[in-house]
């Protein structure tokens, strides 16, 4: 039975279903229940934006509010995972990685390899990413490229409620550490979502729209910019685009991307992260090295500028890759032919 529910509700549902299915699943985070030791109501917050609201009533002490000590509780989640639990830790904003990164970079990500394959670390770290919330430079970053760079980590960034539910369920069942990135400006976004449990395998991108002229790749929020751009291009320029939603950044579905570019010959990657060593550059470089012959024009990267995220809404709106920027990039891949 599918109903329209929000991205936020889909995440809540995925957590609920996995907690019912597997007693080793526990949730840790700041105010994920709320009101700990306070005189008022229980379950007072359900997370800073209410994503985990209501789970405490269903699962009680398997949700654990933490002190404001990310190193300690993210590390505790990692350690518990190495001891057979399946913790889902909420790092409110991924920007806070800076105070707990070692437990991810040098511990969770490396156990398996460093210990010769003898360790398993099934921990999920949920965190909000992305700009548009007027939350300024320390609460709006993507940082997805940094995690994608790290061997041993899996990195997920859904673009809609359906994927959010299926990918989070897979993340919890996956035996490797997963960084689960939730774009805060997608929380209210609704799609049809089945009530029952389902897992979306990692490394399978979603071909959202089929065209023949150009391949547009995005993830998270930028998938929507890519779709809007594709619609506009179809209407106004009769350009038909393949739009690929990566869904997972690591592992990444190279086959689907390469296959599409081999048919279109043109590639535009839309990435909300900063440009240097970005997901956009990663994809353009891989495709160029491995499908150079198929390219009819220079691949184009549409990213945030090489700046922190500005506070002022007028600037922040310019910071996030726009539909105009995507259509312009597509335009460059069509004229670029002449140059090439």
């Amino acid at each position, binding site marked *: 039975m599918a109903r329209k529910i929000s991205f936020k509700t889909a995440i809540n549902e995925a957590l609920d279903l996995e907690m019912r299915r597997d007693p080793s699943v526990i949730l840790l985070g*700041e*105010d994920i229940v*709320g*009101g*700990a*030791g*306070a*005189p*008022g*109501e229980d379950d*007072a*917050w359900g997370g*800073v934006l209410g994503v985990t609201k209501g789970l405490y009533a269903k699962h009680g002490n398997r949700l654990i*509010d933490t*002190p*404001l*000590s990310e*190193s*300690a509780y993210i590390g505790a989640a990692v350690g518990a995972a190495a001891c057979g639990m399946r913790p889902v830790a909420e790092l409110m904003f991924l*920007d*806070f990685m*800076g*105070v707990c990164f070692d437990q991810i970079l040098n511990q969770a990500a490396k156990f398996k390899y460093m210990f010769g394959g003898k360790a398993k670390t099934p921990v999920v770290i949920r965190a909000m990413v992305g700009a548009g*919330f*007027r*939350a*300024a*430079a*320390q*609460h709006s970053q993507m940082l997805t490229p940094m995690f994608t760079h790290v061997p041993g980590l899996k990195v997920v960034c859904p673009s809609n409620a359906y994927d959010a539910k299926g990918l989070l369920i897979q993340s919890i069942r996956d035996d490797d550490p997963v960084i689960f990135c939730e774009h805060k400006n997608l929380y209210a976004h609704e799609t049809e979502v089945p009530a029952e449990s389902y897992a979306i395998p990692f490394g399978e991108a979603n071909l959202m729209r089929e065209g023949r002229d150009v391949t547009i790749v995005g993830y998270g929020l930028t998938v929507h910019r890519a779709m809007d751009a594709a619609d506009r291009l179809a209407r106004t320029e009769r350009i038909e685009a393949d739009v690929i939603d990566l869904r997972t950044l690591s592992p990444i579905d190279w086959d689907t991307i390469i296959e599409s570019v081999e048919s279109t010959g043109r590639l535009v990657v839309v990435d909300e992260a900063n440009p240097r060593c970005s997901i956009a550059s990663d994809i353009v470089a891989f495709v160029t090295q491995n499908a150079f012959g198929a390219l009819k024009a220079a691949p184009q990267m549409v990213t945030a*500028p*090489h*700046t*922190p995220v*500005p*506070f*002022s*809404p*007028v*600037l922040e709106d*310019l*910071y996030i890759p726009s539909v105009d920027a995507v259509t312009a990039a597509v335009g460059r891949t069509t004229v670029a032919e002449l140059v090439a």
Partner: protein
Amino acid sequence: MSNNPFPLSRDDLLKAYRTMRTIRDFEERLHVEFAKGDIPGFVHLYAGEEATATGIMMHLTDVDRIASTHRGHGHCIAKGVDVHEMMAEIYGKVTGACRGKGGSMHIADLSKGMMGANGILGAGAPLICGAGLAAKFRGDGGVGITFFGDGASNQGTVLESMNLAAIWNLPVIFVVENNGYAESTSVEYATAVDSYVDRAAGFGLPGVTVDGTDFFAVHEAAGEIIRRARTGGGPALLECKMIRFFGHFEGDAQTYKAKGENELNRETRDCLKIFGNRVTSAGVLAQGDLDLVDREVALLIDDAVASAKSAPLPTPADLLTDVYVSY
């Protein structure tokens, strides 16, 4: 007035009151404007905590540096940051203290020794150790003060910094603004020690706990600690127990608080009322003196909001500037 029982002159008392009133009005007004939907982003109000920022900052000059928090408006005002620039910043205008690029959580004015509000809990503690180190090298007698909440007191950065300041004997003061809550979580749940004085002792720091709603208590305790730090006596911790009148941020339903908790606090523990009663009943200031300040401050805040609203926005070119000194 010859028989002034307070350690501050009449002028200083008026200055203190004006500072506290300015913070209060600034925050109460933001609460109203935010509800109208005019203000973008996260806004954390300092209302109810004014006596702490003011009692401490009365001892400082521009050579002294502070590192603030996400709840930084009060620290900024008490440290002398221009109220018009602050308001414009919160509205995201190019006339703001950070030209609209920082917002409420990042207001800074290094010329005033205000090293920035901070969106990262505890991040100010290492930074202020650096300010203390710089003051020590320069021998300019400056002190550094970092503020952090009861919740942030459990950040490794804060804890490491206490040890660092102690072994380097830095002129640094750690101010715990203990308002009892970290978002919706109580300090009793999150912090495994009853008094921050014991926490400080574990790092070889002297510590004091005061009623942060009592300007005079804060002023006295801070004065002694700051004097000691200035003269090479080293770092210390000051715990100020205080009240947060509003929610964690604007929009917080506050269901974790007890019924009537806010009303009772405003009734019985309003630092401005407490201060007013003290100074008027002592006959050092007349109610009229305070009323005059109230009227002046009201006009100031009105004007700050009005000019912030009408101020120009940043231009697209501003997006790409200020990344590097040489950008």
